[in-house]
């Protein structure tokens, strides 16, 4: 039902939005998150980034996260695209697009999926900085962002 893709090529927001809208005539709200490579991270200039992933588990993990979101909110459809391989600053990394009849469900569903993707989906970023390449450290802020969803009844 939901669309999940791990790919090296870029994605097009308009194309993905048009697909979701053409499939359903009851969509009233479409919320999208796009993650973008920044030119600075943890105080250092970033000239490029490489994304590694665990093939198989990434798709499985993302499907579970989207299914859990669909249990909690009334989602009509959803698309998750995550790029892997080499990326440059201002490149798109990830798309989470959620379609619902109403905006509350779409906003909550999209943010929930992003928060769990950040802590549960097996991707790893390596950045190239003036001091060489380094693996990006997991952030405790991401852990806290994920944890707050378990406080919702």
């Amino acid at each position: 039902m939901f669309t999940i893709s791990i790919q090296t090529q870029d994605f097009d927001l308009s194309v993905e939005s048009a697909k979701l809208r053409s499939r359903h005539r009851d969509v009233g709200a479409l919320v999208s998150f796009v993650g973008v490579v920044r030119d600075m991270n943890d105080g250092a200039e970033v000239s490029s980034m490489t994304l590694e992933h665990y093939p198989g588990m990434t798709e499985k993990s993302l499907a579970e996260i989207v299914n859990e979101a669909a249990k909690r909110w009334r989602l009509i459809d959803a698309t998750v695209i995550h790029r892997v391989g080499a990326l440059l600053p201002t490149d798109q990394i990830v798309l989470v697009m959620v379609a619902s009849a109403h905006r509350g469900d779409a906003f909550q569903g999209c943010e929930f999926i992003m928060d769990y993707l950040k802590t549960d989906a097996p991707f790893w970023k390596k950045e190239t900085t003036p001091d060489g390449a380094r693996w990006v450290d997991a952030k405790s802020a991401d852990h806290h962002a994920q944890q707050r969803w378990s406080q919702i009844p």
Partner: protein
Amino acid sequence: MITLLFFASIREAIGHDRETIAFDGFSTVEELLNLLRARGESYRDALLPAKRWRVAVNQDMVDVTQALKAGDEVAIFPPVTGG
């Protein structure tokens, strides 16, 4: 047999991304980790209890107490940083 997969900084630290080992001398994830740590410094450093790493068995995140069985795919990796 058990298939071991290593990703990201752990893969780099130990120098390879995959191996197959006999299911012998360990029965839980914790025991498997101890067996790997005994291989030498690079393993010990990468898998120190104080360091942060995660384990997935058959593509599900697990605790170190998880029991293993023949044919399992065990992946060891640092906390994820996608998105």
